[in-house]
């Protein structure tokens, strides 16, 4: 037992040395989320255990290598010991208790970092080869940059449009895969203002290493200002002409009216607005707002020469609100 004291002293000394060494290194980027605090706490616990176990095994091994080396001229054998049931029992049971304890800590911390927050805001992160897009459903716009208000719990709904991707901002610590056909959830509450980098952490093909998106955690005021700006941009996009273009497709106008001047079932919309129209009954008129409105709600009243009557549905006046009809007219004006 003369070895017990020196080995114990060396193990304790080495443990502190290794732990201090780990502490002194710049190991991880600075944490920037509430969940990350829990993650980092558990990392700290792991690092302490690693420092101890590393020192325990390496010190005993190196000590044995030095102390129990065969001396010159010694030709004898080592101690004839087959083992020790007590020791084996101890180094089975004690590690078992430690790992079950870590399992317990792993469980409680996992529950903490995955817990839903009552006031969380949903943002949809859509991944495809090799880009990210973020939909803000509450405010009805999407963005290629991820803006987040500091202190606001966020629920990311992760979607993948083609292959597997994974959502990882190292400063937020936690990550999750985006899987085609599923919506995976990742909860993050950013707590430090700054600019970060979202990367794809699942090999996704040619440009995997470049699949990134800028992340900006900003103050709530700055966030509101950004949202207002995005909403205004969205509204600017949301003109009568743009809505009319959507109706052209959704209401089936596209089936009979071309945009490029070609003759389909009905007259083309190219150059239609303001042009004189000749009708099957011989009358003529200029296609102004009132004329187009009438053509949509009551098409048989003025059938253009060369086109059959009774083809266009007579009920668009019921299907479409006046606003929508005016949007379509606004769109027609742009087809020149």
């Amino acid at each position, binding site marked *: 037992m003369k070895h017990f004291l020196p080995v114990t002293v060396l193990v304790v000394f080495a443990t502190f040395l290794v732990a201090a060494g780990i502490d002194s290194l*710049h*190991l*991880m*980027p600075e944490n920037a989320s509430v969940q990350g605090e829990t*993650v980092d706490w558990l*990392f700290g616990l*792991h690092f302490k255990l*690693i420092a101890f*176990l590393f020192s325990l*095994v390496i010190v*005993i*091994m190196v000590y*044995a*290598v030095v102390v*129990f*080396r*065969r001396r010159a001229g*010694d030709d004898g*054998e*080592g*101690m*004839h*010991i*087959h*083992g*020790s049931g007590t*020791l*084996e029992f101890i180094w*089975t049971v004690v*590690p078992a208790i430690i*790992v*079950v304890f*870590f*399992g317990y800590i*792993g*469980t409680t911390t*996992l529950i*903490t*970092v995955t817990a839903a927050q009552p006031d969380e805001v949903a943002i949809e992160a859509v991944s495809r080869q090799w880009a990210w897009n973020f939909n803000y459903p509450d405010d009805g716009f999407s963005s290629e940059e991820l803006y987040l208000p500091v202190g606001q719990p966020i629920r990311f709904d992760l979607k993948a449009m*083609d*292959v*597997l991707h*994974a959502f990882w901002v*190292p400063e937020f*610590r*936690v*990550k*999750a895969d985006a*899987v085609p*056909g599923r919506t995976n*959830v990742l909860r993050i509450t950013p707590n430090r203002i700054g600019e970060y*980098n979202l*990367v794809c*952490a699942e*090999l996704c*093909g*040619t*440009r*995997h*290493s470049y699949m990134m998106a800028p992340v900006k955690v900003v103050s709530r005021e700055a966030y509101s200002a950004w949202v207002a700006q995005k909403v205004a941009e969205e509204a600017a996009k949301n003109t009568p002409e743009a809505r009319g273009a959507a109706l052209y497709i959704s209401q089936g106008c596209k089936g009979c009216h071309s945009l490029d001047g070609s003759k389909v079932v009905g007259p083309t919309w190219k150059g239609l607005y303001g042009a004189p129209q000749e009708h099957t009954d011989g009358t003529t008129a200029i296609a102004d707002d009132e004329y187009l409105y009438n053509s949509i709600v009551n098409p048989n009243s003025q059938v253009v020469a060369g086109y059959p009557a009774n083809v266009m549905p007579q009920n668009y006046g019921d299907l479409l609100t006046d606003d929508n009809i005016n949007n379509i007219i606004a769109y027609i004006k742009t087809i020149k």
Partner: protein
Amino acid sequence: MRTFSQLGLVRGLLGQVLGTLLGMGLVTGTRAAFGYDPLWAAEPAWVIGGLLGTLGFMVGVGSLTDWAKWAIGLETPIHHGAPAGQSEWTRYFAVDLSHKVIGVQYTVWGIFVLLVGGFLATLFRVELLQPGMQYFTTDRYNTLISAHGIIMISAILLGVGGMINYLVPLMIGASDMAFPRLNAFGFWINVPASLMLITAMFVGGWDTGWTAYPPNSLRTALGGPLFFLGFYTIGISSIVGGLNLLVTVFTMRPASMTLFRMPIFVWAAVGTSVLQLLATQLVGLAMLMLIVERSLQMGFFTPVLNEAAIALNSPPGDPVLFQHLFWFYSHPAVYVFVLPGLGIISELLPVFARKPLFGYKWIALSSIGIAFLGFLVWAHHMFTSGMSNYLRLPFMYATLIIAVPTGVKFFSWLGTLWGGKLTYPTPMLFVLGAISVFLLGGLTGPPAATITTDLYLHDSYWVVGHFHQTFFGGFMFPFFAAMYYWFPKVTGRKYNEALGKLHFWLMLPGFWVMSLGQIWAGLLGMRRRIADYDPALGVQNIQVWITIAAFVIALSIFIGLYNFIVSARSAEVAESNPWRSRSPEWQIPSPIPEHSFALPLAVVGEPYDYGLPGSVYVRMVPAGAGD
């Protein structure tokens, strides 16, 4: 020249080329018959070509000949020694049924494949010296890392096969493996498989890593299907090898060798073989399903169907299903790789400590415990895949529990060292190095096991560091320990001790720098499998160190191989038992004669009773006397 053309290997390669061409012709001919345009369809041509090429190799090399003869009722007595009129060396290049020849074949082919995989690593390590792409396109880079992964895995499986095939029959006093023809088949099927994997790099490559996750693997280039097929073929070798070893150990020991009197390496080989036999099917199945989904549009793994699949009204599938099938094998595979190496550590320590193995039964049962638990942890590779906490937590506990039998091994090794009379020739240095490196792997495991911290570490360089530590500590260092230790037994000559120590003292620090660098880069936020990295992460210096270390490791391995080759040809003749081992294989001459044991073996003592005066482990007794 005539000898050359008669070599099984040459005929096998010719068979593979002809088989591949036949397969391609079959596909093209079928398309012509049905009037398809264009006639050449690369993917089915290469897949059918790859299948028939493998078959062609096995026919050409002669691995199927005996079974074909059986089918038509011909006798095929086992031929011992070189074929009539040919020299001894030709045995190693043809189908030979001796486990000692097959063990050497496995090992040599394994080292060749290891060099190919290591060469790929040095290529992409050079690319990673600085940010930006300097030498490769990102596609080429992705192919390199994918090929490095699967080629190294096949190299490790070959090395494991080499150690087990050579050593286990000797250690249990058996004349050979239970099924010598199956044994030869299990080795030779690896050759066309390795060649297919290498070919895959040159027909477009693939960018899925060795994990082949769909849907990306369904879209990747033509190298993909050849990689799946090569992977599948390697799996066949594992399955038949595992089956053969289990039958051998359980039916061919002398009656006096009870389970707890087997050499400890045999226990490790049993653990490995159980995993190989029972788990490999699932990854083989997964690879086949990928091939079928690609070629026939069956939507096993993809919910976002392409137009062809929609036209066939194929039901949508689930990419996560693949991950379950894949990891059900590929996690146990880790223990397939490391259990034999840990067995080597346990086998060699008592010899160099001149002490009994501390806690023999505990070490033996810990191998079985690890093998059993190895089946229950696969989903820890999928902690970020979207599984609920209720599914993730049991896998976390099972994973952490594996630390217990692993810890038993570590502490028992320390117990074996304690109070010994230690000497440090090259094999012992590699054993001690293995313990230190496997310790790193053991310690970097738990942070990836607790899900909370894994959410950070998953798919980062931490994981790269962790599994290189387990493979180097559990395979590479013990493999070289075994190479040096049994070199005198296999070749009958001494290796050069100074070169052996140089090999070790380059490889150990080289590996420590490499893997700690990888661990650190992972903590700094570097993702794995990226061709290019953001300099803002602050990992460039680390990458430079890792690359330098990789070249040091490569240099050390070349020194080792130089030592083996030169020593085998011209070194001093070795004694039959230079290590004063008690194990059966050291009680017979070196190199071992064709019939290893002139007389049947009887176990008369404990395997590791070093330090007990007058005791021996085995004795050779005439049949009928003793036992």
